[in-house]
């Protein structure tokens, strides 16, 4: 059984069809990278997976539990709120823009949701949060406010905030795109480390070398379709599809 599956999802914004019958399933411990040109629907796919967008049609399951399921007319019907609330505990999302809470300290950014959403014991959560903070190389920053940190540090706080919820799977939407080039390395290092610890992850990224190194599987999207999918040495190093080849060629030219 896959940990996460999104099946035959379609999604339109008005007349614009952004996702066309896309199916992705992820097993426990797997690291999946999603690549593709701008506007190909990568973020929309992640937003459907994390329920920030509602799918027009398709099924969405976590650990075999349905968050949404097609009805007989092929339209997604979402589970009742109590069920969705439970399923929300299975995943975390790291945004391109961090989206830390500016009025909360680093420690509170990590601890508030576990305490007030998951109703866990504050002392225990804080202990766990401090471990995560030092794991992210942020010792001593517990009482800082997000704005007092560099972009790279803020993104590490955001990753720690997601991890503090003990998710089964973590989604990243271009976690380094808002960072100066010299700061992307520290984020990639953290993600690499998580991969070594067998954290299940789905990462939308424009860092091809990173995707090749860290991912077990790469998905190339274009125009709302999955064009090619497979092992990174196949998709990134020896792409079969012409569209993939063109995308990757443009990529190596640009940088």
């Amino acid at each position: 059984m896959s940990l996460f599956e999104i099946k035959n999802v379609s999604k339109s914004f008005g007349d614009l069809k952004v996702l066309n019958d896309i199916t992705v399933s992820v097993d426990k411990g797997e690291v999946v990278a999603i690549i593709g040109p701008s506007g190909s629907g990568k973020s929309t796919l992640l937003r459907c997976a994390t329920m920030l967008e509602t799918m027009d049609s398709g099924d969405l399951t976590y650990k075999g539990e349905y968050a949404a399921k097609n009805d007989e007319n092929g339209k997604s019907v979402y589970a009742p709120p109590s069920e969705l609330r439970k399923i929300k505990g299975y995943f975390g999302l790291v945004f391109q823009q961090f989206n830390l809470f500016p009025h909360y300290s680093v420690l509170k950014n990590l601890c508030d949701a576990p305490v007030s959403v998951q109703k866990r014991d504050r002392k225990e959560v804080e202990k766990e949060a401090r471990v995560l903070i030092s794991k992210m190389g942020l010792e001593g920053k517990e009482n800082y406010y997000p704005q007092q940190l560099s972009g790279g540090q803020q993104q590490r706080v955001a990753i720690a905030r997601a991890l503090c919820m003990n998710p089964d799977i973590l989604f990243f939407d271009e976690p380094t795109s808002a960072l100066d080039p010299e700061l992307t390395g520290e984020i990639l290092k953290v993600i690499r480390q998580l991969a070594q610890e067998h954290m299940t992850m789905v990462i939308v990224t424009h860092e091809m070398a990173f995707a090749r190194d860290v991912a077990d599987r790469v998905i190339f999207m274009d125009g709302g379709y999955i064009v090619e999918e497979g092992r990174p040495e196949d998709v990134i190093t020896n792409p079969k599809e012409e569209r993939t080849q063109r995308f990757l060629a443009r990529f190596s030219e640009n940088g």
Partner: protein
Amino acid sequence: MSLMNVMRQIGSGFGSTLIIFFFTLLFSMPLGILVALGRMSKIKPLSVLIQGIISILRGTPLMLQLIVVFYGPYYLFGMKLSTGWRLYATLIGFSINYAAYFAEIFRAGIQSIPVGQTEAATVLGYTKVQTFVKIIFPQMVKRTIPPVTNEVITLVKDTSLAFVLAYQEMFTYAKQVSAAMSSLMPLFVAGLFYYLFNLVVTIAMDRIEKALSYYN
């Protein structure tokens, strides 16, 4: 009449001025938040209705609104107006009018907060209410302090409009004393009171702003 006497007479209306000021803030701010939320509601008829009401409240004189509130029960329902009604009508009129202004300020404040804040909270599992109370509201308060301060300062001066309902606040006394003495001096004294009152308000709002500057 000595200056001391004038000050005491005018000062005796200060309590009433304070009552209008304090209760207007107490009622209009929470009401303003509710109105702002209604104005941003996805239920189109509600949002349009509220938008219309806000437009009328901001587009017509407060003095007119006070008179309508005061005489409304008499002309609409033939009710007899008691003396106590003066104060209640004043507070109702002020609170509704200021709620309209605060609602627009709060709405702009809420909408200026990046949508990523709500999205992050949603993914973390916060309920809608939790998201508003813990994430959006505190940031809204900080962002809206400057325009709210402007409104509060205006309110201090607007309390003098209660004289149209013959509610005995500071300005009513000042006019009476001025007429009795055939002198402008009492009006200057009243002006000084309003000015000092606003000085205190400004300092207080400044304090609040500083207290919230622990983050950007």
